[in-house]
């Protein structure tokens, strides 16, 4: 009898064709993601002149020092605070709202299918176009929202022109736009939840709330973590609505970290400082995504 020993050790170049086939994706990823990321890291150490790179000066960590000192207007810390309040609000509300709507529309009836489409439609519309539409809806003098408020004998609100309401107005728009995506994640998740567990729980006398809390939600945990991570990343990178609807104002009340990256790079032409902000934004995004995954692993029974 011949014994065949199969080596389980993988050889890195066992299949050159496999590498050839993944090469296009790797090239695209390298050209459009890895190289720009490394370039951004490098540029953040310079006072960068992209019109004439020969005039760029290596200044080490000065861009980071200036950022942390908060000397710029708006300060890094104030943009971080605006970003944090937007991200926390978005993640909590979009996840809860998406889950609630998904539970409500989980049965595939005609009405629920219409509801799903109507809510998801907002997500697939271009943000620039819908942001402009919402500017008109929010218009202080001619907007439909204030017209409704007036009909209800409520005071008019200068939604985008008042520092106290501008961020809230953008949050409402962002929720309208993003909830459809989280709803679809949860509808997918609910389809995979075991029906038997629910039935057994109901036979044992569980209420609908208890069934949701103790059976459905734990089963949905991977989907919740995924939805939270995606919502966090999207909220951290939110730019279009801030750019179109308020331009960071009034004052700097809606100037987020992501908006400041654009502002410094393309308006103030401080490419080095903008790159430093982008590096910090990248680090915050990576840390939060990692932390959320760690929490998920810890909760895993």
């Amino acid at each position, binding site marked *: 009898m011949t014994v065949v020993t199969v080596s389980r050790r993988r050889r890195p170049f066992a299949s050159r*064709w496999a590498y*050839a*086939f993944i*090469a*296009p994706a790797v*090239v*695209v990823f390298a050209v459009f993601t890895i190289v720009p990321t490394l370039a951004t890291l490098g540029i953040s150490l310079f006072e960068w*002149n*992209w*019109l*004439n790179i020969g*005039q760029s000066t290596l200044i080490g960590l000065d861009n980071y020092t200036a950022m942390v000192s908060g*000397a*710029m*207007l*708006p300060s890094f810390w104030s943009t971080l605070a605006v970003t944090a309040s937007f991200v926390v609000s978005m993640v909590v509300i979009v996840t809860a709202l998406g889950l609630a709507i998904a539970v409500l529309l989980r049965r595939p009836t005609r009405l629920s299918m219409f509801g799903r489409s109507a809510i998801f439609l907002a997500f697939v519309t271009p943000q620039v176009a819908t942001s402009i539409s919402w*500017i008109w809806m929010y*218009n*202080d*003098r*001619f907007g439909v929202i204030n017209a409704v408020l007036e009909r209800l004998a409520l005071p008019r609100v*200068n939604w*985008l*022109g*008042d*520092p106290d309401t501008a961020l809230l107005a953008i949050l409402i728009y962002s929720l309208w736009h993003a909830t459809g995506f989280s709803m679809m994640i949860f509808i997918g998740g609910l389809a995979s939840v075991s029906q038997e567990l629910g039935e057994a729980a109901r036979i044992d006398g569980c209420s609908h709330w208890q069934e949701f809390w103790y059976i459905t939600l734990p089963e949905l945990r991977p989907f919740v973590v995924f939805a939270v991570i995606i919502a966090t990343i999207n909220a951290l990178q939110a730019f279009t609505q801030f*750019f179109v609807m*308020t*331009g*960071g*104002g*009034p*004052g*700097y*009340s809606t*100037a987020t970290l992501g908006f400041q990256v654009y*502002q410094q790079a*393309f*308006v*103030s*032409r401080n490419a080095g400082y903008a790159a430093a902000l982008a590096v910090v934004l990248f680090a915050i995004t990576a840390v939060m995504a990692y932390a959320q995954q760690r929490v998920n692993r810890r909760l895993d029974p």
Partner: protein
Amino acid sequence: MSRCTSHSTTSHNVTTNSSTTNSSTSAFGSRRRTLGVAGAGVVLAIALSGCSTPDADAGSASGDVTVTFMEAMSSGALKPSLEAATARFEADNPGITVELIEQPDYGTLFTKIESSVAAGAAPTIAQVNAAWAVTLADSDVILPLDDRVAGSATYDSFYDGIKNDMTLVDGQNWMWPFNKSLYVQYFNSNLVADAPSTWTEFATTARDVSTDGVVAVSTDPGGASGIGQGSELVGMIAESNGGSMFDDEGVPTFTDPEVISALEYLVGLQADGALAAGTNYPGQQALGAEKGAFDLSTVASYQYNLAAVDGKFEMGVATLPEGTEGASNALSGTNIAMFADATDAEQDAAWQYMEFLASSAETAEWAAATGYLPVTPDAIDEPVYADYIASNPWVSDVIAQLDIAVRPTPRPWTTDSLSIFAAMVSEALAGASTPADALERAQDAALALVK
């Protein structure tokens, strides 16, 4: 370009060699290799896709020259007017082709200019404003035009304000005038019988007409992304009362008492319901909707305001009210700059085109069609512009201000300072801080930018 050509050749050889070598192998092996070559081809095609731009050489064997002009004259009457002028130039100059590279707005235009320069593919000439010219000149990517200006037949006839607007802080001419405008007051003649002639009178009229849902004036102060008309207004009111937003060295003076007073003037109007801050041309919207009595914007808005009013009432136009020290106006619009990468032949051809656009006949055609102002008084004698003035008598008063119109000589920190100023004006108009506090913060932040 040569690097890309070399890659293309390599790609071709790889395919040829593979085909030849595979002829003696098994069918299976041949399929694998074919797939492999196809995969490699895909990789190369993707890698080379960025090199597929057409030959950028503007000259041709026949000696013809192509001038590329990056501009943002894309809306309304601007586009056909520029295209018609360019066609007339090309007809007069058979060896020169002008390729208009149109951008949708000024923001996109400057981003495209920067990216073109960074990619080593700058246009021959482009529309620029003075602040952009500072960045481009400091980076050695545009050319000073002093030698060409010295030999220009049209330069001497330009309005003084136009001449001043062509220079930067070094005193050299870096730009050539193109689409220039000044602020005016558009008003609803049903609500305002006669245009107010002083800012004091303006405030009284504005308060009087602000009833029954009418808010006399709506304006966009701008913000962090750039200065808007509302913030420009603060500067013009301050200057007409003897104040200034910058000193002779270009250092911001946002806490000048007249600047604070001008912002208080606007905040006071707002508190009395006579002024509203907004975005997206709020003055034009309100005027057109008969919910505003005035729109304080530039002559470039004339055609757009007429369209917004749409014959609902007679729209009056007049020069801006004056302050205690007389009239003040901010010269707006852009100039043309020439890029250093252009060949001598392209530069010469571009200069011919620039001079053509500023000639009295062409600036008259342009101004009559678009509402922008002519850069030389000689245009007034051209029949087309004489007819325009006869139909729009207010234009004569506005043109007269071209000799006194100013803009701050831009320094590297000017644009950012004005953005900070605009953000603080918007904060004050939003009621989040008093004018004095807002301008104090703006001054501190702007001074930190001064190098």
